[in-house]
């Protein structure tokens, strides 16, 4: 979403006079780009912001931010700036830059540019007022856009990390041929529940499992949403040809299941994990014997 050569597209919601004023102050900011940028970089160092970055790095980023800032002022549209802010955040967050620093430097730039405008138009008080009327809302929107972009990027990174942690903490174990065990420990929120199901279904297919033992001994409590999810997991597994045995059902959880309308007699449940594995082996063993034509139809 960069700039188009030639006429730049401007926010059509702006009035003619605002556009003209912005064009004038943007010209000023572009003409004085070098000094203003240096002034800003100096103020950043003075305020002890971006200490995690080197001077060269700050200068390089400062140039991009400055140009994007001025461009946003000129066009009155903020998509490019938002995209840039997220991109910048993606690069500096791993460096340890914090939200207050990012907000800080943008506000500093706003001030440096405002002072420069004061300086240039101080002899014409009326014009100065009109220039500031055009500048202030835009500058504030810019600060907002950059800050929000940074925070969103941060949140996205945190979510990704949480996801990675979740995946690590819920392994599906293959203990025997055609038999999978999924021990669930701790608190399950709806998102984790969904991930568990997805992982389990993929594992059933990859391992060609015929029986799955889901052990919920380690689950303290379960609300009706998650209980529903457990039922759905059992049903989805069946669609993939796998039988599910649920073990470690506490009386509380059993009650929750009954409350949401689950017929426990239809669900394959066994008291503990060991018992569940034995039941699973029995199911698998039974099927193997059925196959055995040499035994002349002998049942296990």
């Amino acid at each position: 979403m960069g700039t188009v050569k030639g006429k730049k597209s401007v926010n059509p919601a702006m009035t003619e006079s605002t556009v003209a004023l912005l064009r004038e102050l943007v010209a000023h900011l572009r003409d004085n780009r070098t000094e203003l940028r240096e002034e800003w970089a100096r103020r950043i160092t003075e305020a002890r912001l971006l200490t995690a970055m080197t001077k060269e790095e700050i200068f390089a980023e400062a140039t991009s931010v400055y140009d994007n800032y001025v461009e946003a002022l000129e066009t009155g549209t903020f998509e490019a700036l938002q995209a840039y802010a997220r991109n910048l955040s993606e690069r500096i967050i791993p460096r340890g830059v914090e939200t207050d620093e990012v907000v800080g430097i943008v506000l500093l730039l706003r001030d440096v540019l405002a002072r420069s405008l004061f300086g240039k138009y101080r002899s014409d008080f009326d014009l100065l007022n009109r220039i500031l009327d055009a500048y202030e809302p835009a500058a504030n929107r810019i600060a907002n856009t950059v800050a929000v972009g940074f925070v969103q990027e941060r949140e996205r990174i945190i979510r990704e990390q949480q996801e990675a942690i979740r995946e690590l903490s819920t392994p599906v174990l293959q203990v025997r041929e055609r038999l999978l065990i999924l021990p669930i420990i701790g608190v399950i929120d709806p998102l984790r529940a969904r991930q568990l199901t997805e992982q389990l279904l993929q594992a059933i297919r990859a391992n060609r499992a015929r029986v799955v033992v889901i052990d919920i001994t380690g689950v303290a409590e379960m609300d009706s949403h998650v209980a529903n999810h457990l039922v759905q997991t059992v049903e989805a597994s069946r669609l993939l040809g796998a039988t599910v045995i649920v073990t470690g059902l506490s009386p509380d959880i059993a009650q929750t299941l009954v409350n949401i309308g689950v017929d426990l007699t239809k669900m394959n449940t066994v008291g503990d994990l060991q018992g569940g594995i034995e039941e699973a082996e029995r199911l698998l063993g039974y099927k193997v014997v059925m196959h055995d034509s040499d035994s002349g139809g002998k049942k296990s």
Partner: protein
Amino acid sequence: MAVPILKQSNYLIATIQAALTDQDFVQLRDALVEKVGRFRSRGVIVDVTALDVLDSFASRTLRDLAYMIRLRGAHTVIVGIQPDVAFAMVQLGITLADVSTALDLEEGLAFLDSVDSEQARA
């Protein structure tokens, strides 16, 4: 678009290759029922590996299919439901209740064999 149906000894294997319209589904159902009668097949496998969606219509038609084939003395197994598809089905409350399912063709055949020998014993 006709779904290819193969005859493998006592079984019929229908392998769906691409998304089916409602009409295609109904045609498949009727073709299988007719062939089961003609060949006196003992089992039918419908392979839905290529289907990226199994909605309520598909589910109803497959259940009708299994029921009608049962009336002709044969057993039906649906194989190859993708994990994503199974997940979507249960979330939307679309069930294949009373219809046998297996992971893939190999499992499906093993299942039919076991049902067959059990019936032979009876």
